[in-house]
């Protein structure tokens, strides 16, 4: 079922949560609403579900305007950050809830409900827990039950509000992959809210980056990551070094060091700009490979797993540079704290104000 969000605006006393948001989502897509906390992403999700009302704008599901439908008639599955399982009901009754509360004319028979619940529990691999109570389950298990409960009523769309953020790192990763697979199997149009860029990049077909109630960028994970539309998106998607510089003679000058950029900056008048460099796009070497290499001193080495993080102090740059190199490179170069190395800035992106140039 496609979702059409048109000019949704919502303000609270003192701030605007959503400022004229429009977005269309195709049938079967898995969309991430990504943004910092307080950016309005959860509000948008709750408006689609009918748990909040927008001040302006409309929500169209398939071809039907559902803006003013009460939440219980929207037929939208909602998964909450803290699961919101019914604590006094066991797993079976939790999943069966949506089927049991239907008016008797539309209600399925007891055995049909039972079959449906068992099918869903199988789908979320929790059929063994049918008699358990929510308090007897782990966070990851509870969230699976919450998902089964939401799917039980055959929702037109599935909305997930930070579904994994209350889980620990390992379970989060596992459940994320599992959800991706589940989505491929059942293909219900889904929107999930997250502040975790990694989660959005890994899971979503398309990412909507939201900041201060506005959409900053909309695109596939690759587009958003490789071609951030503006400084905010660049900053928000992954670690990044930011340096204040000045654009002069087609180059950006940071401190007193002119840095090569992939694009020509000719024709731009001299002005201030911000240079963005991702840590993994910084090369470190014992040998100078080009004139523009910087000379840096390793201040700190952090072992982060497969990657090694380096803090580099360079002459001319007012801040330490964060670099990430593969473990093998680190081992081959035999780098130690205090060593002098040559630093290559491979991919520098420059924005002035909020615009890329």
């Amino acid at each position, binding site marked *: 079922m496609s979702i059409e969000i048109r000019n949704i605006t919502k303000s609270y006393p003192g701030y605007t949560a959503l400022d004229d948001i429009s977005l269309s989502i195709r049938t079967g897509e898995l969309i991430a609403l990504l943004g910092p906390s307080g950016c309005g992403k959860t509000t948008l999700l709750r408006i689609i579900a009918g*748990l909040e009302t927008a001040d302006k704008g409309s929500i169209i599901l398939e071809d039907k305007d559902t803006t003013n439908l009460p939440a*219980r008639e929207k037929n939208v599955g909602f998964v*909450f950050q803290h699961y*919101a399982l019914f*604590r006094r009901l066991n797993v079976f009754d939790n999943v069966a809830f949506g089927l049991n509360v*239907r008016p008797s004319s539309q209600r399925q028979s007891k055995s049909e409900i039972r079959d449906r619940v068992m099918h869903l529990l199988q789908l979320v691999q929790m059929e063994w827990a049918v008699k358990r109570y929510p308090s007897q389950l782990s966070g990851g298990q509870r969230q699976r039950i919450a998902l089964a*409960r939401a799917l039980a009523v055959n929702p037109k769309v599935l909305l997930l509000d930070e579904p994994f953020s209350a889980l620990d790192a390992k379970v989060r990763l596992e459940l994320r992959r599992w959800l991706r697979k589940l989505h491929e199997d059942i293909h219900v149009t889904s929107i999930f809210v997250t502040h975790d860029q990694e989660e959005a990049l890994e899971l979503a077909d398309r990412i909507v980056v939201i900041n201060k109630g506005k959409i900053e960028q909309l695109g596939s994970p690759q587009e958003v990551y490789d071609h951030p539309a503006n400084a905010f998106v660049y900053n928000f998607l992954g670690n990044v070094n930011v340096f204040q510089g000045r654009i002069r003679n087609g180059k950006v000058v940071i401190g007193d060091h002119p840095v090569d950029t992939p694009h020509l900056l000719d024709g731009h008048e001299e002005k201030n700009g911000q240079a963005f460099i991702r840590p993994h796009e910084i090369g470190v070497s014992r040998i100078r490979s080009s004139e523009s290499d910087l000379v840096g001193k390793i201040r700190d080495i952090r072992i982060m797993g497969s990657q090694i993080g380096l803090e580099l102090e360079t002459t001319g740059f007012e801040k330490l540079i964060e670099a990430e190199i593969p473990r093998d490179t680190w081992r081959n170069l035999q780098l130690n704290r205090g060593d002098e190395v040559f630093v290559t800035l491979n991919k520098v992106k420059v924005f002035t104000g909020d615009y890329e140039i």
Partner: protein
Amino acid sequence: MQTSTTRQTATITGSRSKDPIAVQLLLIALTFLFFAGFIFMPLALVFSQALQKGVQLYLDSIREPYALEAVKLTLITAAIVVPLNAVFGVTAAWAISKFSFKGKTLLVSLLDLPFAVSPVIAGLIFVLLVGSRTPFGSWLGEHGIKIIFSTPGIVIATLFVTFPFVARELIPLMESQGREEEEAAITLGARGWQVFRIITLPNIRWGLMYGMILCTARSIGEFGAVSVVSGHIRGMTNTIPLHVEILYSEYNYTASFAVASILVFLALTTVAIKGAVEKHVHNNQ
């Protein structure tokens, strides 16, 4: 890190074990003394006074028609007041904890009013409002409705004095439980009444029970507000506490204490139920 944690634990256990045993004993003894002086002794006195002139007189005193009428009126009042305040308390707690609206802070503060004002004043307010000399009261009188100096007045005064108990008990509980379960139920297609019956009520039932017990205890024992609106008509508008007071002021000590012992008995029963409920709530968490 490791060492600092160990050290911290060490200081905590150290300070606890350093607490001299004499101080502990003294504090425990003081608590017991206080209980003995202010609770056990008076309780024992009530029963010894009541039984001073023999079991027969005690039984006669509590079986006397006026005493029975007083017990009946007290129980009727509680039977009306407690369910009404339960409904009111759930409604108020629901509104306050699950919605945000203008005047919410004011409502929460007003909820404490019956605790803050003296019950006598509460009674007086109703006399001034619906007493026979007021326009509203005389209008009611013309239509044959008597509130002051009759059962409705006693019920209203008791309602007022006891209405915060249930709401006060439920607001923190419902606030801590949040709205998510109800929201989940709504998105799954449940109607308001279904949400309340299947989700909300089971979640708050023990808190509700606890609030209702406190409400019962207070409505049985209420003296001040009821005293003002009752008129002390024996056999008609006398509740147990009022009857005790009348007997006492007539120097009929034995009968007075005998009737008081009923009150004590009712109070002890409520405390016992309260204890059981508390234990259950504790086990449930």
